[in-house]
């Protein structure tokens, strides 16, 4: 073994200067950027009338009031399973899309991709396209370079602040908070959140970019498990492109061995925001943004070769294509047991959530028996059980709820703090805790059995809506 200096275990970040590209995928990405950023920045400003006592912001995560509002849907803390269900659907959706279409999430809609795209747009606008940026990068730090750099950073910072600023509007009334923020009168947490998100947006979108995808994000490492040879992904048809070589207008047949279609123009490499060469095959770094397809198609058009040297394709088609046969149609790649299974699971959760959403009532109750002690003997020998009844009034006005109990036996219900009445005024949009006593007379079956089933009812006296919950009555077993 020859003596060598030990190699460095750390590498400097290789700068990437993506060149401008146009084509159908670039256009698609602009539209997706417009829609996703539009939703993100504008959603908190949409108003939605819910009545007098409720906020009128269409999308509001009211942490302090413990309510999530999404247009006509209001989620209470005990309904958090809706959020969990949506997260499960998001996860399954990601599995589905990755197994069918590869890393489309990474390439088109991931916030890291969208904001980096926006930052590169600013960069190109201020500093010029790839060649100008490479020159500027190598140039000395003179006035010209400082001016361009500071301009770029200032615009980035403005975007980053808007990003962090928009985030906090989801958590409280947006117009009020905007006014407070400008008066330097808002809660420190709002400023802190904006500061942190401004910093992360600025650093991740401006400087770390592909490093986030390669070194920070777990998804590139997991996605391999979701993909198989039938997954549609961005790939290079090396059977068509190789052997690559510089383009010549007129090829003398005798001069050289047959050439592939790739003219080694590096267009695919130069436009790549990840700084990789798609011709090296599938790579963890590839976010399948498809910009290399646009770049290559453009070159193929110009040299008069068919498009699709770099293309969305399924790797399982390679043998057929090598043999000159046509690839399988797209739908036969996408529709396969795996994707159908993910779709079925995703739909199952979705249908369950929609069902649960429509089964919800504007009035609910939860009965929790107090079991310390399990029962109380009263002086006349009757047996009392105590229950905490939580009544939820989801209306925007106060309602009078009437409580009652049913069972096979002669149990009686009494409200704590009231000798006779069974009615409670529950304020708007609130949960009201009422302790109730259920009493069985001395020789009643419920008083002498260890357990009997009873049902506690709540009736909204304004609408006649009823809700109930079954619970257990503990007797003094003899």
């Amino acid at each position, binding site marked *: *073994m*020859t003596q*060598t*200096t*030990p*190699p*460095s*275990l*750390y*590498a*400097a*970040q290789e700068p990437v200067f993506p060149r401008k590209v146009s084509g159908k995928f670039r256009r698609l990405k602009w539209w997706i950027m417009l829609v996703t950023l539009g939703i993100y920045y504008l959603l908190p400003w949409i108003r939605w009338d819910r009545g007098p006592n409720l906020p009128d912001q269409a999308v509001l995560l009211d942490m302090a009031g413990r309510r999530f509002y999404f247009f006509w849907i209001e989620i209470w803390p005990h309904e958090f399973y809706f959020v969990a269900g949506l997260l499960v659907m998001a996860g399954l959706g990601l599995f589905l899309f990755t197994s069918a279409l590869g890393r489309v999430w990474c390439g088109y809609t991931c916030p890291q991709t969208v904001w980096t795209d926006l930052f590169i747009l600013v960069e190109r606008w201020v500093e010029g396209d790839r060649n100008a940026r490479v020159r500027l990068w190598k140039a000395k730090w003179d006035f010209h370079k400082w001016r361009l750099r500071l301009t770029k950073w200032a615009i980035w910072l403005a975007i980053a602040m808007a990003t962090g600023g928009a985030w906090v509007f989801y958590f409280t009334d947006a117009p009020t908070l905007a006014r407070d923020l400008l008066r330097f009168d808002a809660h420190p947490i709002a400023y802190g959140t904006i500061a942190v998100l401004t910093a992360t947006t600025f650093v991740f979108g401006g400087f*770390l970019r592909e*490093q986030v995808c390669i*070194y920070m994000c777990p998804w590139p490492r997991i996605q391999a498990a979701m993909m198989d040879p039938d997954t549609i992904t961005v790939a290079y048809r090396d059977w068509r492109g190789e052997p690559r070589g510089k383009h010549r207008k007129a090829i003398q047949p005798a001069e050289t061995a047959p050439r592939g279609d790739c003219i080694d123009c590096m267009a695919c490499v130069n436009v790549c925001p990840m700084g990789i060469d798609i011709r090296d095959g599938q790579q963890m770094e590839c976010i399948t943004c498809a910009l290399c397809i646009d770049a290559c198609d453009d070159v193929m058009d110009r040299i008069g070769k068919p498009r699709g040297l770099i293309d969305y394709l399924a790797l399982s088609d390679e043998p057929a294509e090598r043999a000159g046969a046509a690839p399988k149609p797209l739908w036969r790649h996408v529709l396969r047991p795996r994707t159908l299974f993910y779709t079925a699971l995703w739909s199952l959760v979705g249908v369950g959530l929609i069902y649960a959403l429509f089964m919800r009532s504007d009035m609910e109750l939860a009965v929790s028996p*107090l079991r*310390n*002690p399990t029962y*109380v*003997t*009263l*002086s*006349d*020998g009757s047996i*009392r059980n*105590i229950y905490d009844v939580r009544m939820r009034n989801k209306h925007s006005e106060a309602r009078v709820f009437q409580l009652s109990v049913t069972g096979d036996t002669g149990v009686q219900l009494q409200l*704590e*703090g009231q000798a006779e009445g069974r009615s409670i005024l529950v304020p708007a949009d609130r949960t009201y805790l009422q302790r109730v*006593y259920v009493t069985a007379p*001395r020789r009643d079956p419920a008083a002498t059995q260890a357990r009997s089933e009873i049902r506690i009812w709540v009736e909204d006296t304004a609408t006649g809506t009823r809700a109930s919950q079954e619970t257990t009555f503990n007797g003094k077993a003899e």
Partner: protein
Amino acid sequence: MSDHTEKNVDEVTGVETTGHSWDGIEELNNPMPRWWLWSLYATIVWGIAYTIAYPAWPLISGATTGVLGWSTRADVARDIETHNAKNGPLVEQLLATEMNRLPENPDLLRYAVARGGAVFKAQCSQCHGSGAAGFKGYPNLLDDDWLWGGSLDDITYSVRHGIRNDTDDDARFSQMPAFGEFMEKEQIRGVAEYVYSLSNSDADAVLAASGQPLFAEQCAACHGETGLGDREQGAPNLADAIWLYGGDRESLIHTITYSRFGIMPAWGQRLIEADVRAVSAYVHGLGGGE
């Protein structure tokens, strides 16, 4: 990359190796980005700064306090102060209100009950149980049977002065004689059977009848002709379904023979006035308050 030296390159992957080799297995070198290394150093610097700013390094007694002077204890003290300040007006109101009139002010009552619940858990649950259901000899506070009265005023008096203690001259006091000292066992069995018959239908009628005259003679002064008890003397109702020391024949004979003498401390001597009132309101609200 510059080719300044010869590199060890793995033939299969084409990746440079570190030059380390174990039994012929060579370690590939896929270098980490350098900013990653810098972020590691940054966390180390942060960690050191943190241990300077906040309590961290253990010493022989105690630990460094940190230059920011932060402590959880001070946080708690501040929290308590904040809450006391916030509740100040309610406490004043509680002290100024007659106990029997407390229910007229629902907000104040809610505060008193909440505060009293905390006092109860800390001070009363050892004898009366955390659910206030009591134990043998320690009354159940959830039921509607009261030895010394179940109104807010009665309960507050019992809490403040206690029962049969020798520290408070105003403590509620009464004493049942140990009848074993001057009654025959047979007589006690008769009295016990009579008491048993007051609330049970399966009593021995002959035996109970033999105890009745003795009951009228010895017991009725406190427990009443019909055994309904007397709250003035803390004499229990013997005709109801609730028994502090057990209502079976054996327990009754034991009680009559040896007597009972339940004691409760005078909480007015141990708690501040607001807590005495609060815990009384809590006990009153447990379900049996009158």
